[in-house]
């Protein structure tokens, strides 16, 4: 555990000069994930399944 923490600490020291870019890229990545297009057809099929069944069952 101590070794791991030590390693992470040193890794952070190594990455310190690039962290602004790193965090900016991570923010962009998160923002893109949030706005990423989700296919609409499966949502429609799921939403309408019960209604469709009610219509076709008669």
């Amino acid at each position, binding site marked *: 555990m101590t070794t791991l923490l030590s*390693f992470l600490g*040193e*890794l952070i020291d*190594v*990455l310190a000069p*690039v962290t602004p*870019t*790193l965090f900016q*890229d*991570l923010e*962009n*990545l998160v923002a*893109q994930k949030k*706005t*990423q*297009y*989700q*296919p*609409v*057809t499966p*949502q*429609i*099929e799921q*939403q*309408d399944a019960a*209604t*469709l069944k*009610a*219509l*076709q069952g*008669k």
Partner: protein
Amino acid sequence: MIARWVAAIALCLCVCFGCTPANTASAPSAQQDAANALKLVNDAWEASATACAAAEDQGLVATGKCGPVFVPIYDSIVLAGNLVDTWDAAAQEQLPCLLKQIMTDLVSGEKVLTDAKLTIPPAVLTAQAGIEAFAASLCLADAGADQ
């Protein structure tokens, strides 16, 4: 020490090349607009079809009358969903007129409800306005051409 540098370099490479988001800032927006418009239509369909099925259950509408009206409209909605999900040039061209057509069919289908003295679900009016706004300038086949 070497392992640390390897890890750091790998992380940097990931951030700088592999993990950097592609520059697709403008593309998803129009597709999302289309998906939102389609969701309006689907909500209207669901409200109408559900009301019709309930009216059948209550004996207000003849049994078996709702399916032939609303199931074909559902098929068109799924087709429109496929166009939105595909979103290539052909799909972008076809979608606005298809949405207008679905809305026209849906409004016609409301006759089943109004004949039974039932009110048209508010979602239909919302969708009508939304599709008019979405497709007005995009459906170029309006000038008397049949779909």
